[in-house]
């Protein structure tokens, strides 16, 4: 690494903490980057590293990492997080560890804090979720906590950014001390792991908790009137020691969401609404995109003229890209709903509800979220399986994720359905698409069950299957955060797929239009349309693509396909979403306003 020396000089601050304590929100505030934060453990699948925004005037790098419960890891993602804390492969040992602590669940969070302090890290405690603690009618003395733990404690509202200044003041102070202390400060990694030490640690933490948490007597007055009402109810419920009670609203809502009968109904209804809205809400927007691109393509052809490069621009480039962009509305809606569900805290409940059925076929409730995001894109979904502790369950989940119908496959299905179903029969088309999705889920479950049956011979099944999951307090999902996450995901999709599709569209245009660009056909007694049609089919029948297609036809024949599908399939090796644009060019699908004509 050529930046090694400069990076070593810049202090590294690692943000860590238990899942759902606001690590990523804080990271976003400090870095100014809009990474998505979700209310589900393990959402940080990749490490994000960034410089602290210049407006904060602190010269340091910050590292965001997946949430951990203890320094003794039980799953691959925890193991990776712990290893990175001790020694990041590129950036070394962090100079400062900023650990986020959910103040409303202090004792469980302090367990990790103490492990980190005992390991010799330079720790700064960031108290978050103070609003939840205030809602219960309690507050925390950060001064006392700081004295007891012998480290800096700051209160931060990671959503509004309130308190970040205090955090940075503390960081600056620590950085100054770092240069004085130099190498004296060493991280050992030795911390108590035995049962006795664990229990002793918790006994001490309970005493700390009693010392620092105090009853405010009256709950904070909130500006919002609905919160006022909740608070009035809560004052009545408050009794000494009730800060150890989970969020009241969450408890009430869970009576329905986790109900034996209603819970299941809510679960399936949510999934149903999610998938139907992806198809039905998106339809008008898709028509709009389609219209725009065909209009653009026509205009381009009119302006540039009816020659080979005019044709390249209108047919090769604009139509090629348009055929993929048309599915952007569906992708946007899918990501928006996924993000809203994650942020609200519903997905953790979904994982709990579906754990038992999934465990029957060798999966885990924690497979649920990766499987669901598999409908958006398979790669991040596979990475998200790292939260599954059991190796066999994790491998099996990874194994079936590609069977989930990912968003890139949508264009392919839509195209095939357009071929098979008359254009005016939109209902049948929608039904078939829904059936394809149901089939993809069913087939993945059947395959998981079959592999699970025979897996004992090739996978180590000795490790313990476990499901321990914190159900976070319900929070109103912030629409702005969801929209940001939706756009950044969609942008990723377009940026990754776009250039590939563009190049391949051009290459395919060359392959399908050349060398015989203007073929000679018998024009006697034929209308203009028919002449165009004949020329098109003659051109492609003598093109470079047809030669490749004919070459691989012996392989395609037994499948009932001919050289044209063969050419499209070759193009798909780059990305599966390319299939549509290539098949469109090859099959001479002329997109006219709202009507798709197939010209063979």
């Amino acid at each position, binding site marked *: 690494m050529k930046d090694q020396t400069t990076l070593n000089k810049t202090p590294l601050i690692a943000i860590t903490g238990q899942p759902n304590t606001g690590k990523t929100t804080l990271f976003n505030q400090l870095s100014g980057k809009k990474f998505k934060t979700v209310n589900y453990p393990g959402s940080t699948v990749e490490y994000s590293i960034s410089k602290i925004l210049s407006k904060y005037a602190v010269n340091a790098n910050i590292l965001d990492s997946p949430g951990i419960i203890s320094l003794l890891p039980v799953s691959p993602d925890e193991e990776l997080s712990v290893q990175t804390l001790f020694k990041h492969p590129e950036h070394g040992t962090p100079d400062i560890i900023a650990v986020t602590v959910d103040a409303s*669940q202090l004792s469980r969070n302090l367990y990790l804090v103490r492990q980190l302090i005992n390991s010799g890290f330079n720790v700064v405690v960031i108290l978050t979720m103070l609003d939840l603690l205030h809602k219960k009618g309690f507050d925390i003395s950060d001064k006392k906590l700081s004295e007891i733990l012998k480290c800096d404690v700051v209160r931060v509202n990671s959503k509004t950014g309130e308190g970040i200044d205090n955090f940075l003041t503390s960081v600056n102070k620590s950085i100054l001390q770092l240069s004085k202390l130099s190498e004296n400060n060493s991280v050992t990694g030795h911390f108590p792991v035995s049962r006795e030490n664990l229990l002793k640690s918790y006994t001490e933490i309970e005493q700390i908790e009693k010392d620092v948490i105090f009853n405010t007597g009256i709950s904070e007055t909130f500006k919002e009137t609905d919160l006022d009402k909740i608070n009035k109810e809560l004052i009545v419920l408050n009794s000494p020691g009730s800060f150890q009670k989970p969020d009241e609203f969450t408890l009430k809502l869970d009576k329905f969401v986790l109900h034996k009968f209603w819970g299941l109904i809510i679960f399936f209804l949510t999934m149903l609404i999610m998938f139907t809205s992806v198809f039905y809400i998106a339809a008008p927007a898709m028509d709009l995109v389609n219209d725009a691109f065909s209009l653009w393509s026509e205009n381009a052809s009119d302006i540039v003229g009816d020659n080979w490069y005019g044709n390249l621009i209108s047919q090769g480039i604009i139509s090629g890209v348009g055929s993929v962009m048309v599915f952007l509305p569906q992708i946007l809606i899918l990501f928006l709903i996924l993000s809203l569900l994650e942020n609200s805290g519903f997905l953790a409940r979904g994982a709990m509800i579906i754990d038992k059925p999934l465990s029957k076929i060798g999966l885990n409730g924690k497979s649920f979220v990766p499987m669901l995001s598999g409908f958006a894109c398979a790669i991040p979904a596979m990475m998200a399986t790292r939260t599954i502790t059991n190796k066999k369950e994790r491998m099996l989940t990874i194994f079936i994720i590609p069977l989930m119908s990912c968003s890139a496959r949508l264009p392919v299905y839509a195209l095939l359905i357009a071929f098979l179903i008359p254009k005016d029969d939109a209902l049948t088309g929608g039904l078939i698409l829904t059936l394809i999705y149901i089939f993809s889920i069913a087939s993945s479950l059947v395959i998981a069950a079959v592999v699970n049956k025979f897996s004992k011979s090739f996978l180590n099944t000795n490790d313990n299957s476990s499901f321990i999951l914190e159900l976070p307090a319900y929070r109103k999902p912030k629409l702005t955060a969801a929209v940001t996450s939706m756009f950044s995901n969609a942008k990723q999709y377009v940026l990754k797929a776009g250039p590939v599709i563009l190049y391949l569209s051009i290459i395919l245009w060359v392959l399908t239009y050349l060398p015989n660009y203007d073929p000679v056909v018998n024009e006697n007694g034929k209308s203009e349309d028919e002449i165009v049609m004949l020329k098109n089919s003659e051109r492609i029948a003598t093109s470079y693509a047809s030669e490749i297609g004919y070459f691989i036809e012996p392989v395609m024949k037994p499948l009932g396909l001919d050289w044209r599908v063969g050419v499209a399939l070759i193009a798909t090796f780059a990305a599966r979403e390319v299939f549509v644009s290539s098949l469109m060019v090859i099959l001479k699908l002329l997109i006219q306003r709202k009507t798709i004509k197939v010209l063979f």
Partner: protein
Amino acid sequence: MKTAADMKIGEKARIEDIDNSHPSSHRLMEIGFTPGQEIEMLNKTLFNDPIAFSIRGSIIAIRKNEAASIII
């Protein structure tokens, strides 16, 4: 011997001990299920598994067999 898996919805109990022989016992204690703590059984999903408990101000869902290692 009564365990957390035998509790009814809304029932409260104090943890007596955690069965050391269960592979998840260490993680259960780390997440807060330590002897002496009060737990409340909040919800059971279909098939009575997993089970959601209130512990130390959090809601934690664990499998029935894991709940059976929590002696009350």
